[in-house]
């Protein structure tokens, strides 16, 4: 009975405790890494925030129209807060990966290695998206202003089309960078873009022939008005 007790309960328990004992230092290291990560992330977040305030990052975003876009999307936080928060969580994520690596578990190690090898692509994709988003806002607004000043009644539609095209382009580039359905994305983008151009050409040539005629007539009339207007603004 005593032998059975030892074999069935004591030995597995001892083995388990041994494994736990061997695992504890790794766990402790992970907790230390995570704690350091949280502290470091908090410090870097504060530093980044102060730096962004110093370089007037919020005003720059305001000028680029980013603040207004974020506000429209329900994001009420200032861009400097947003960026410092993203940096904070990115650092936490990196330290979490390092901490998981410290556990010295083979499947986890493999997962961490994969994540780290993927990180550069992820970063490039994020940068591409941010730059694409900024450019889309900038050119969208430039198109709107130019179209309104040229008295194009569908100015907003035109501006949205430009903005959407740039965002689509940036998304395609980001997905391509991430290696997600590479061929599908490129093909889908080419088909969509080509399709839009073809649709516009057909619409203008056939379906919207009257609208096109009206548009050109209006432009000619406006040019005529301009010619009639012989005063100098200066």
């Amino acid at each position, binding site marked *: 009975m005593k032998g059975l007790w030892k074999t069935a309960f004591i030995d597995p328990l001892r083995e388990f405790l041994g494994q736990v004992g061997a695992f504890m230092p790794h766990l402790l290291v992970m907790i230390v890494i995570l704690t350091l990560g949280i502290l470091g992330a908090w410090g870097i977040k504060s530093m980044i925030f102060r730096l962004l305030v110093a370089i007037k990052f919020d005003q720059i975003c305001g000028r680029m129209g980013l*603040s207004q876009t974020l506000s429209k999307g329900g994001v009420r936080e200032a861009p400097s807060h947003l960026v410092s928060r993203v940096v904070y969580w990115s650092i936490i994520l990196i330290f979490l990966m390092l901490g998981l690596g410290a556990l010295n578990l083979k499947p986890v190690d493999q997962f961490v290695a994969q994540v780290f090898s993927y990180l550069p692509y992820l970063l490039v994709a994020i940068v591409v998206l941010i730059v694409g988003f900024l450019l889309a806002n*900038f050119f969208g607004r430039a198109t709107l202003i130019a179209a309104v*000043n040229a008295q194009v009644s569908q100015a907003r539609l035109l501006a949205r089309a430009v903005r959407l095209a740039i965002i689509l382009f940036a998304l395609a580039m980001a997905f391509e960078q991430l290696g997600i359905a590479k061929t599908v994305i490129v093909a889908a983008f080419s088909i969509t873009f080509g399709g839009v151009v073809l649709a516009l050409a057909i619409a203008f040539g056939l379906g919207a022939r009257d609208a096109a005629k009206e548009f050109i007539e209006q432009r000619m009339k406006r040019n005529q008005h301009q010619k009639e207007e012989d005063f100098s603004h200066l």
Partner: protein
Amino acid sequence: MLQDELKSQLQSIGQADILVGIPSYNNARTIGRVVQAVGAGLAKYFPEARAVLVNSDGGSLDGTPQAVAQASVDLENILIAHRVNPLHKITTPYHGIPGKGSAFRMIFEIAEALKVKACAVLDADLRSITPEWIELLLRPILKQGYDYVAPYYLRHKYDGTITNSIVYPLTRALYGKRIRQPIGGEFGFTGELASYFLAKDVWGTDVARYGIDIWMTTTAITRGCKICQAYLGAKIHDPKDPAADLSAMLAQVVGSVFSLMEEHVGVWRAVRESEPIPLFGFQFEVGLEPISVNVDGMVKALELGLKEFIPLWEGVLSEKVLNGLKGLSPSASELKFTDDLWVWVVYDFALAAHRRLMTREHLLRSFTPLYLGRIASFILETQQSSHEAVEERIEALCRVFERDKPHLVQQWNHQVNRGGQP
């Protein structure tokens, strides 16, 4: 930076007393007359002066340089019998950004190289120029000790709308000098001032384009130059190219005014009231050609601008201005863009440019529909008014600009947090 051929031409001339500069681009139709008037003016009023005429051309394709070369004055025909120094003519292309300012830069370079005492610049599209303009622009410099002569014209009541509605009232309120045509196009100035202009590092900005006139006038004011005005009579010129982009022109002029505000804040902040500037020349009455204006097009531009730009201006313009703009009736019969609202719009745009609340180019270009709306309202209001009554309306507008200037001064350095913008 002068080309070798031009250098040798200048070396052969040596020194000169007077330089008259004419910037041009496809002005073959009118420039010959302008050159003849310059020749006659110099022969009549400055016969002993060593004079040079410089045509700084932007690559005209219509034979403008040939028109300059062929233009000559029959002195007997204008009853000049005395000995006259020959007029040297130089036609040269300018370098740099295409625009009037770059053409002026070339003129300043030649003025400096020839060590001239006095310069005058004239637009090439003038149809009403007479030889007397040369005397009126140059004599105050050569004989009266003035540094800068601004033009004073009789213009149609709706001609020069950027001048009348923005540049004149704003310059007057800011710097306290009542220069009626600060961007007139015809100026006289000393050779020393030309060298000062040339030395400034502004030739990569809007000053190289349409911003040159207001930059020269403001620089002369802030440098403490002795300034006067010359009564030139009627200003009649060829209509501008209809394809010329009003939005770009407005952005360049207004942008230059705003940039100058940044540069000279120490000067204009202290100015409390404006003073008149001496006006020389016999003030005669002239008949002005009627001009046509498309008010409906302007009202439509305002309507579309208000519809599309109000969201852009949220957080950029003050609540007071935004509410005022939202309350504007975009119909020609009811449109009333008051002086009070207009002054606040201009000041708010200046403040927004100063605080960099929006990309500068976008901000300035979004101003166009408001400008057109204001002009439409002004034209509708003064349709039956005489020239004198319209001048009085412009004076009233200037007084509103001056009255509300303390608001601009107070807000200039005041960092506000509007509409969630830091």
